[in-house]
Each structure stands twice: as C-alpha cells, then as structure tokens.
C-alpha cells in the first residue's frame, strides 16, 4: 500500500500547504504503481523534468568562485523551473537535484538550490527546506524516499 505524501490524491486536488519532504512513502514494487496516486502523465513529466533539469535545461547555473588559500570553494546556485506552477512535487524534484549534485560534484562544492522566482506558489518554503542540510539528510535516511529519488535519477 502506498501512501505518498505529495499532495496528490485521486481527485486531483493539489494540496499546496504541505511542502514537507514526502515522509510516508510506503514500499512499492514498480514505479508505475505510483500512478495510483499521481496520474501517469504527471509522473512521466516529473521524470522528464528531472532528466531535463540535469541536462542543464531549464536550469540556470550561477557559479561564484571564491578562492581561499588557492583552494577554490565553488558555490553553485542552481535554479530550477518546475513546469507546473502549483506542483507540490517541487520539493521532490529539488531533492533529486540535490542528490544528483551531491553525487557528482567534489565535496568542496557548496550548492544552493532555488525554485526559479515566481514559478511556484510556495517557493520560499520549498527553498528553505531544500537548503536545510539537516532536513535533507533526515529525508534521505528514509529508505523508501531514497529509493524513489534513485529511480528518478536513473538514466
């Protein structure tokens, strides 16, 4: 039984109040089972979004390089644009982005992730959570959420 706390339900009403990282992700056998709770076109769009984002499209990278004692501390500011304005999956997408960057970049990189301004109803809340490393760390300790993120990041 899947309980995916993303705000989607069968009726299609989107709950924008809940931007917490999905915490009640139950076990699931196949990715397609998610379409019971998130309609399939949305799921596909999410996967496309993530892949698209990671191919720098429509991401805006802003690199600020600072040098401290010849060891560059690179700060990436990554802005992503969810294609659905009220998509409460923005938090999940942002999380996937953070995980992908964490796994790809050297540890000295400091990354700030933001929802592109004006493109999400609760962008301040989403941004705050995505940039709170303790919240991100705790969310990624949820094995089901981690599995979901991994499946989204699969090529």
């Amino acid at each position, binding site marked *: 039984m899947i309980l995916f706390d993303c705000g989607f339900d069968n009726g299609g009403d989107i709950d924008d109040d809940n931007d917490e990282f999905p915490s009640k992700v139950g076990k699931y056998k196949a990715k397609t089972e998610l379409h019971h709770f998130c309609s399939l076109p949305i799921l596909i769009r999410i996967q496309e979004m993530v892949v698209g984002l990671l191919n720098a499209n429509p991401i805006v990278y802003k690199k600020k390089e600072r040098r401290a*004692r010849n*060891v560059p501390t690179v700060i990436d500011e990554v802005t992503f644009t969810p294609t659905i304005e009220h998509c409460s999956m923005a938090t999940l997408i942002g999380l996937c982005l953070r995980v992908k960057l964490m796994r790809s970049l050297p540890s000295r990189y400091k990354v700030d992730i933001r929802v592109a301004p004006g493109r999400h109803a609760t962008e301040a809340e989403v941004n*705050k959570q995505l940039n709170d490393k*303790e919240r991100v760390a705790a969310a990624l300790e949820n094995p089901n959420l981690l599995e979901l993120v991994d499946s989204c990041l699969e090529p």
Partner: protein
Amino acid sequence: MELLDGELELREIQKLEGHTDRVWSLAWNPTGTGVAGMLASCSGDKTVRIWQKGPSGSWDCSAVLEDTHTRTVRSCAWSPSGKLLATASFDGTTAIWERVGGEFECVATLEGHENEVKSVSWNASGSLLATCARDKTVWIWEAQPGNEFECVSVLQGHTQDVKMVQWHPFLDVLVSVGYDNSVKVWTEDGDDDWHCVQTLGEAGSGHTSTVWALSFNSAGDRMVTCSDDLTLKIWDTSQNPSETSGDGSGSWSHLCTLSGYHDRTIFSVHWSRDGLIASGAADDAIRLFTESKDRMVDQPSYKMLVKREKAHDMDVNSVQWNLKEPKLLASASDDGTIKIWELSEVSKVDNFVQSHHLLIGFCQPQVVNSIGLCTLAPLFMSSSRDVKESELLDSKVPIEVFDT
C-alpha cells in the same frame, strides 16, 4: 588566517579521525578524567565516540557507542555529574548511557517524539532533561532513581522543526530555537506547568531565518544565537530570567547583532567561560568574537577576534570550548573529522623579517660544493636576522657565502 587585535590565533593541536560520516555535535564532559577531560562526538554513522587524552598526550578514541541508534545521532550531552551521556537521534529516541569505568552502557531509551530528535540538554542540577524534534515540540523529562525518566511536559508553541534546546547555566529556564526563526524561553509555574514566557524575534529584532543554536554566557545574563540569516544575535537580561513582568512577557531583550562576518549559514555557537564566543559555519571557518572594550560606544558591542579559514574541509557543524581549559576548543565537521584547537598568541619565532638574506658561517658540504668552494674552509658569518638552528640545516634557505 586573519588575525585581528592582540595577535591571537587558533592553533590546530590534533585532528581526530574515526567517524565514517559527518560529525554533527560534540560535548565535553564537565568533570572528566585527567587535566582536560573527555569529549563525546556523534555522527551520521549512527555512533557516538568518546575521546580522551592518552598518556602520550594525544587524543585517542577510547569507546564507540554503537548498535543502539538506528539512524544519525544528532546531538549529545553529558549530565552535570559527568556520569551519564544523553544522545538524541533521527530515529526518534534519546538514549541514556552510563559510564562505568571506561565502558558505556545504554541504561534507558526515551521514546515519544514523532520524528527526528534534534537536540538534548540537561539542566544545572541534572534533575531534568529537555529534548526537541522536527515534530515542533519540546519534551521535558524528569530523572528518577534507577535511571528512569518520566516525561513531565510536552511543550507546544513552535510552528516548525525545533533545532536546539539549552538550559540556563543555573536556573531552571529552558530556551529553544528553530526552523520557525524564533527563540522561545520556557519556565515552570510550579508543579510541572511549563509555558513559554517569551518569544524573541517577533518585534523586528529577531532572526529572519532558521535559528540553529544558542549558548549562554557563564553569568547567565546573556545568550547568543546563530542563524541561517548569517548573523549572531546577543540577547541580554538584566533581571532574573525566570521572572516575568506584569503582563506575562519575559525579560530578555536584543542587545546587538553581529552581521557581515559570515556569508554562509552559522550552525553552531558556544560561549566560553572567558567570554569568547566561537562560531562554526558552512564556509568551513571558525570565528571568535569578544566584547569590544571601545569606550566611545555606549552600548556594549562585540567584535571579531580571530577568523580561522579552512578550519575543516567542509561545513563546521559544532564548536565547543573545553569547560576546564578555556583555551581549548573542539570542532566537528561534515568532513567526518574533529579537531582540537588551542587559542594562543602568535609565536614570535614565526614572525620573520621579510628579507630572506642569510650569511652563514659553516654550511652543509653539499651546498659548499655546489658553489665551488673548499668544503672545509671556515667562512665569515653574520646574519641579517635571527635564524633558527633548523634553518641552517635547511638547504632551501637561500644563502650567500663569503670568503674571509
């Protein structure tokens, strides 16, 4: 490394390795053994490590507390007696460990929070324990005989994840800080009736983003908070902090804000017995602040004393002054290491005169050979600056050799 005023620096004494994931938090044992005591560290690797200074003078890991927490251990705190260690974990529990000789045994597990526990703190007498979690609550537990703990109150009030709780150094006053950008002061109205007597940060002088940590000064009349808004704020109370004024509001007021010193989130702050405030931030640096003795200014103000850049390779999550040796500081990082630092004056020997010119008397045979002189000829010697003996043997120092 920048040095401001007084030529002080943080000298790295030792790097402690062993944890296999980020180290979140540190706690010095208030009593401890030996001169400098014992340090506890907790990590994303789900363990707690105990470090002690060995007979050789170096710090070694004397115990690993494992197989208890099933997720990140986020915070740890020693009881005032130094015999018990409380550890708070993302698994929703707080474990109590008892120290018996060199061994530690888990004697109690406090359950109740709905999700990740972020912080734990003992009151001055060791009779009460406070914990806080992402479930927005603060729990107060009473220590009873036989290592039993009973929850006496669940404090509601925060509107988001509570990041840290800290008891006042000698009064039963609790302060909590969190993701809702607020700082809350809690006291008891007799008989386990705890309530929030003040929320700092509502009137415009408060933090504008997550407050990560707080620390009291030793006198208990000031506290410092640090935040994701890149500032440190000093709060002051001239009265007994457990007293409330007539309309129910508390007595803490904003004293000053230290801004412009940090450009990444400040995760930890700790006030030493000597009055130095240490901060650990996401730019991998440790900074020290002290009260400015500037007579020109009416208001008390604070200034940065030392900035130690690249203290670690990654974010500094915790800074803690040793409770017995006030010049000793420990820091913990996302890089999985802990470092012990000593605050000291910059050594005079390190202050070299700019000129590297050196005229030497007797030089290494190899050097003499390379410039074609007789190896055994005594030479004229003088120097333009003080020279360390080790440098005479260091062939890297450029030399000029004169023949008499």
